[in-house]
């Protein structure tokens, strides 16, 4: 198996806190991985280490390179959008395209212009004249025109409206993703990415709380919705998590006997958001 990211004992310490605590992580090629965790869980710290933007302890290899030593070389095969609105505000669109083309060996000007032609962004615009959505479209057009092996998106749609957020992920999936590429996404808006993810990694307090593929999620976890009279028997089957909604009880089970549960109520595949809440408050792993 070819791993795009391989971390062993990855640790990031700040003066007083440990942001990433001894993480082991392997991300194979051709996956779309959601790195999900509450604020301050260490997602961004882990990504910064992976991108060579911060120092770290432990072993880390990205596409066979050490991010701490070879950031510049690594960036030929890795792209990232770290949050919206980090494009330099003074630059004009044509300058940005020319510059990226001159620095990035794998940038295709034609592709970039093609993506931009579907937007209202013109070559003569300065970044500071563009709306937030247009800046995000521009950045995505640039990134999608670069033929890299790993794309890292850190809250790529933060502060954008729902129409654009949907379109962002559609473009990414239809026009960009293929078997040779890997995408790592962190986001708060779990619902929007769950149907495009192939793998889930939950991070809590600097540690990995859950790491499995979406198929495994469907296989391992099951959600039971039942009326209050069955709630007692459901509780005896050791659910990971319980909540109440409109007078009905919703239980989350791991590796449960489905035949047994079916007698108590309706069964569903849990949403990533529900799994996330259960993991963060209980311990589903």
């Amino acid at each position: 198996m070819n791993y795009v990211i391989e971390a062993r004992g990855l640790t990031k310490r700040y003066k007083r806190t440990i942001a990433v605590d001894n993480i082991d992580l392997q991300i194979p090629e051709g996956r779309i991985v959601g790195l999900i965790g509450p604020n301050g869980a260490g997602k961004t710290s882990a990504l910064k280490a992976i991108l060579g933007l911060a120092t770290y302890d432990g072993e880390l290899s990205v596409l066979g390179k050490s991010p701490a030593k070879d950031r510049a070389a690594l960036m030929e095969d890795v792209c990232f959008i770290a949050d919206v609105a980090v494009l330099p505000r003074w630059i004009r669109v044509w300058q940005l395209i020319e510059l990226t083309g001159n620095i990035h060996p794998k940038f295709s000007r034609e592709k970039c212009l093609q993506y931009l032609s579907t937007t209202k962004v013109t070559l003569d615009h300065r970044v500071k004249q563009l709306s937030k959505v247009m800046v995000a479209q521009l950045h995505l057009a640039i990134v999608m025109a670069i033929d890299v092996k790993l794309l890292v998106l850190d809250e790529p749609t933060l502060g954008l409206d729902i129409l654009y957020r949907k379109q962002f992920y559609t473009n990414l999936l239809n026009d960009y993703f293929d078997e040779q590429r890997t995408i790592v996404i962190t986001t708060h808006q779990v619902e929007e990415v769950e149907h495009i993810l192939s793998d889930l990694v939950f991070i809590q307090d600097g540690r990995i709380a859950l790491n499995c593929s979406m198929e495994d999620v469907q296989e391992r976890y099951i959600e039971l919705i039942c009326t209050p009279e069955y709630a007692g028997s459901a509780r005896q089957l050791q659910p990971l998590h319980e909540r109440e909604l409109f007078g009905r009880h919703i239980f989350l089970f791991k590796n449960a006997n489905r035949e047994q549960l079916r007698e108590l109520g309706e069964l569903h595949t849990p949403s990533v958001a529900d799994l996330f809440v259960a993991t963060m408050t209980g311990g589903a792993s």
Partner: protein
Amino acid sequence: MNRLMALVKREFWENKGAFRTTPLVIGGIFLAAMLMFLITFNHFDNEFQSLKELLRFIAQSDVALRDKILYEVNLSMSVIFSMVLAFVVFFYLLGSLYDDRKDRSILFWKSLPASDTLTIGSKLLSAMFLAPLVFWVIYVLTHIVIMLLFSVVIMVLGENPWTLVLSLGSPFKAWSLVLLSYFAQSFWALPLYGWLMLVSAFAPRIPLLFAILPPVVLGVLELWFDFLKTFTLSDNLFGLIGHWFANSPLIMSADSHGDEFGVSLGAPLTSDFDHQVTVANMFDRLFSSDMLINLVIAAIFLAGTLWLRRRATES
């Protein structure tokens, strides 16, 4: 190499106002001043009744003296460009590694496959060569335009512009000396450039304060401690900076060479070097032991800059 050139180009794009508009404005002011002089000349209360009379007088004056005066005027015209250039480069470097940290665009720059060394190199090269070159080109253009305008006026008033001014003053020699002095100064000023980049990479806010305060505090403390000992100019930080400044290979001030008056290299306050404007004197500074110390200090500052830039996205 392509990447380096692309990054230098980016510096030019970002700093077009400072690098190009500023010298254009100075050139414009020179032209405006000249036009005002020509228009209002007759109203001045002076010994010549008219411009024609003045030109007559100039035409009859000693050719060698006229040649020398024109040469000195040409060189001194560069001084205003040089002073403004120094300010432009100062503030450019002070913001060079600070602005993108402040607006977070550093995250975009770091997503490009260009090393931090290359980035710092491109900024230093822009300060050392790009800005001076643009200023120099505009200085030369300003001089040419002024000469052409003046020639037209001279012709209209019935004199020969070629013998009067155009053939005199060795403009090509003056221009070359100015360009050479700009580049010599770029090397001489490396410790300052290194310091400004270090501050730019370090300052959490207001880089100007971080650039000026430490040397001032250090210098004042030093003065205070040394006060009761032998107080000489060169023994403390201020003195060293003063010497460094006075010895610059930049054409920047008036001086009397013997009994003649003219421009000089640096400020003729010290006798460590000859201050007369010659190529030999510029090279004398560049191959001195002082320059070696300059390079060592610059290397330390730049190494620190690189160290900081590598860690600039932590937090």
